[in-house]
């Protein structure tokens, strides 16, 4: 098993610009240590229609007054101020950036956490899509796909993750595979409840327990 940078296609080049948007880094830093209600606040605002911050302070009173909540609200409103296409791109990039930041907290070396990487196995055709974030600790690697919502969990995604896990097992290499979903476990369970794609061996990290990425995955069962 080995990791390799994905060859950048046109989509990736455009998306790299989105990933570099300072707003993405700002929100990722704030959400890295957000409470679950603060994460729900961020999700709601980035999904929302109204731009008046007082509306959101009223809607999530448990988060206010609080400095981090105010910063999250201001940044999330900036995301919501974009049209749907850019908003969607920013949201996806934010989930990836939060994942990267959380994994870095337990990486032995900052270089172990990478973005847009393929996982290659001997005698196996390489996968089409790169993994969003990888933790490439020798002997204990992890590969994650990141989703804004449970709706992003598709059979293709599940098959790719499960295939990688099985191929790593075949090579007697440790590879944890997971989905980081900025949505509730309930919504993800509903999504997975109807799929015939394999998901028993795929870790699921949801909005209630994003911190599990930094702490180790005991709190993020398959």
């Amino acid at each position, binding site marked *: 098993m080995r990791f390799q940078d994905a060859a950048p296609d046109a989509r990736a080049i455009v998306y790299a610009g989105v990933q570099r948007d300072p707003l993405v880094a700002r929100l990722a830093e704030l959400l890295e240590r957000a409470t679950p209600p603060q994460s729900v606040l961020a999700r709601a605002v980035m999904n929302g229609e109204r731009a008046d911050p007082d*509306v959101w302070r009223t809607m999530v*009173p448990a988060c206010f007054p609080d400095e981090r909540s105010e910063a999250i609200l201001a940044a999330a409103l900036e995301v919501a101020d974009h049209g749907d296409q850019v908003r969607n791109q920013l949201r996806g990039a934010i989930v990836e950036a939060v994942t990267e930041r959380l994994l870095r907290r337990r990486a032995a070396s900052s270089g172990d956490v990478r973005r847009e990487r393929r996982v290659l196995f001997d005698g196996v055709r390489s996968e089409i899509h790169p993994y969003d974030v990888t933790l490439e600790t020798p002997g204990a690697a992890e590969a994650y796909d990141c989703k804004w919502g*449970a709706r992003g969990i598709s059979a293709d995604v599940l098959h790719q993750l499960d295939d990688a896990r099985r191929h790593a097992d075949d090579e007697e290499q440790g590879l944890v595979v997971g989905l980081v979903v900025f949505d509730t476990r309930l919504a993800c369970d509903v999504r997975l409840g109807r799929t015939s794609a394999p998901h028993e061996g795929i870790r699921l990290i949801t909005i209630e327990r994003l911190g599990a990425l930094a702490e180790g995955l005991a709190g993020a069962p398959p």
Partner: protein
Amino acid sequence: MTETVGELVAAAIEATDALGLLAEDVEDEWTFVTDLVAAQRARLAAIADRRGEESATDSAAAAVASAADETHLIADPHRAIDWLSTFPDLVAIALGEPVGG
């Protein structure tokens, strides 16, 4: 007049149903939407079963009303799907319940 938790949850279930109707317009996601609506209804109903007679705080009532108002502004069925998972959590947080149920 002070509202009860049960009354707030009833309003939240009504708003959840309305989001579901809008979200069903995304035909490929019909099953997911109907399953998610059913799961969220059950979750909210469980709160009402436990605490329905309890008086809600003014801030909880205002929070649920504001969240329900936001759902009424959602016109895009794709965004309605996102709100189907988010809105019940806003209600739960307002009522002092944990995120995710």
